[in-house]
């Protein structure tokens, strides 16, 4: 098992799937300024995905580049956390998904900025600037919606209830993360849990939201066991290169 390859796929796929989903909002946002903001975040995610997947391809050493990895893996080959593939839904669903991810991402990028792998550290440092901005954006919206109208409050409370169980996948520890942390080039995501919990609690307090009682978490993304959504998402994303495998784009 190539732990570095696996680890980098997780990073790349999180960013790729989120970026893909955010791209679906372009032209359909609730207000023009927010359309631009969401697309900006999506662009950052795609940029991160490209960087991580390129590095993953190098780590694998089988000649696969970012596009070969993005467009020619089947669902079971994807390593994104389940949270990322939850559907866009309405704006509240998207913002909750984004907030839960961003609060994790700032911890992740801070930790990886100290990676013993210079390339990983460089990507992490750049991504850290972006995720700090993303968190500010998603957190501010959580507060606006949670402490807005009755309608926005109940909508976003429901989103939180629905999505929180899928966030656990972000903190999944296994042999891969153990090796990554042990060898100093990666981080064990379980270590981010306390800080993430605090961030979620603080946001809930400010947004007048109730953190739902603990429910069993949905996991499996890091091992290629996904929800029904991913297959549809990939079918759309991968259609052109798979239909014309000899073409250069």
């Amino acid at each position, binding site marked *: 098992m190539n732990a570095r390859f696996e680890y980098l796929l997780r990073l790349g796929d999180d960013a790729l799937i989120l970026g893909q989903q955010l791209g679906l909002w372009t032209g359909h946002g609730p207000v023009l300024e927010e359309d631009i903001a969401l697309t900006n975040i999506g662009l950052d995610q795609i940029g991160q995905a490209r960087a991580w997947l390129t590095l993953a391809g190098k780590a694998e050493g089988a000649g696969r580049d970012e596009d070969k990895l993005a467009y020619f893996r089947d669902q079971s080959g994807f390593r994104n956390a389940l949270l990322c593939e939850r559907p866009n839904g309405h704006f509240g669903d998207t913002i909750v998904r984004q907030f839960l991810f961003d609060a994790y991402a700032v911890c992740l990028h801070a930790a990886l900025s100290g990676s013993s792998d210079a390339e990983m550290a460089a990507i992490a440092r750049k991504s850290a600037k972006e995720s700090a901005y993303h968190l500010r954006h998603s957190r501010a919206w959580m507060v606006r919606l949670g402490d807005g109208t009755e309608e926005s409050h109940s909508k976003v409370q429901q989103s939180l209830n629905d999505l929180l169980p899928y966030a656990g996948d972000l903190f999944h520890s296994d042999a891969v993360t153990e090796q990554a942390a042990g060898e100093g080039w990666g981080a064990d995501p379980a270590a981010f849990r306390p800080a993430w919990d605090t961030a979620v609690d603080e946001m809930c307090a400010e947004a007048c939201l109730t953190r739902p009682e603990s429910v069993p978490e949905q996991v499996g993304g890091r091992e290629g066991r996904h929800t029904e959504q991913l297959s549809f998402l990939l079918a759309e994303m991968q259609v052109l290169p798979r239909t*014309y495998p000899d073409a250069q784009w």
Partner: protein
Amino acid sequence: MNGFGGEPLLPPIGSLHVILRIFDVLMEMDLLQRFEAYVAAEKKIEPKDWMPDAYRKTLIRQISQHAHSEIVGMLPEGNWISRAPSLKRKAILMAKVQDEAGHGLYLYSACETLGVQRDDTIEDLHSGKAKYSSIFNYPTLNWADIGAIGWLVDGAAIMNQVPICKCSYGPYARAMVRVCKEESFHQRQGFQIMMNMAGGTEDQKAMAQDAFNRWWWPSLMMFGPPDDDSPNSAQSMAWNIKRFSNDELRQKFVDLTVPQADLLGLTVPDPDLKWNEETGHYETGEIDWSEFKRVVSGHGPCNKERIEARRKAWDEGAWVREAARVHAEKRASRRADANTAAA
């Protein structure tokens, strides 16, 4: 006040009214003359300057139409973001469509300096009262359409837009300068896609030619009806809002683009196209203006979908906009309460 003999000096109310009205008209004629001289001297009109009502109205119409076009234009291209065939292409397309949102925003912002609210102009778009460029009522059917739009549609838009950088209304001119700086990247990325496809596999070549076949004529129509069929043009040109005629720009576009098609190895879908040695210009075949009229009046392939998509986004976003507004009010009143308490 009485004059000698006990008769009032002030004339009766009726004729006072007439005199004041005459003063008004003379003032306005003077203002109009000065306005037109100012414009003729290539000076800029700014939001707080006096302007004829018709000038204001025509600018509101043109700028808001332009803004709506940018926003609606996000949809045919936005369709292909999720299916972009490489991550680099995906990122480039996202950036391009995001730019278009930004352009819409600059233009709405320029429009608002004329005293309209953005939300009201958007309502006009959704109700069908306001128009937008008819080119965006065509569907994007394969990846090469994204190339064709960048190459042809943005190419035509650039040609329309560059002259507007010198238009008489300051905020519009400045918005266009910003837009034009960003637009050049749009055309280049489109052309690069076409080059790639036209020089690629047989399937890609076929897609490229097919896209060209469908986008060529609508792009020519982007310049508007023939000069002798354009009601708004004359006044707009007199006020330096419109700098070149529809036919002039269309000709320029054709002359520039046909050689580019040749370079790509694509066939212009116009069997009557020929080079006129004498005039030094290409002559196209007959443009089907009845199609243009059909599309402009709401019966193009995608008119309904485009407006429905915009309306849906707006309606479904109402609760979000409302929440943000209410939250801001809550914060403001909490701050006020805190200030009072602290005092």
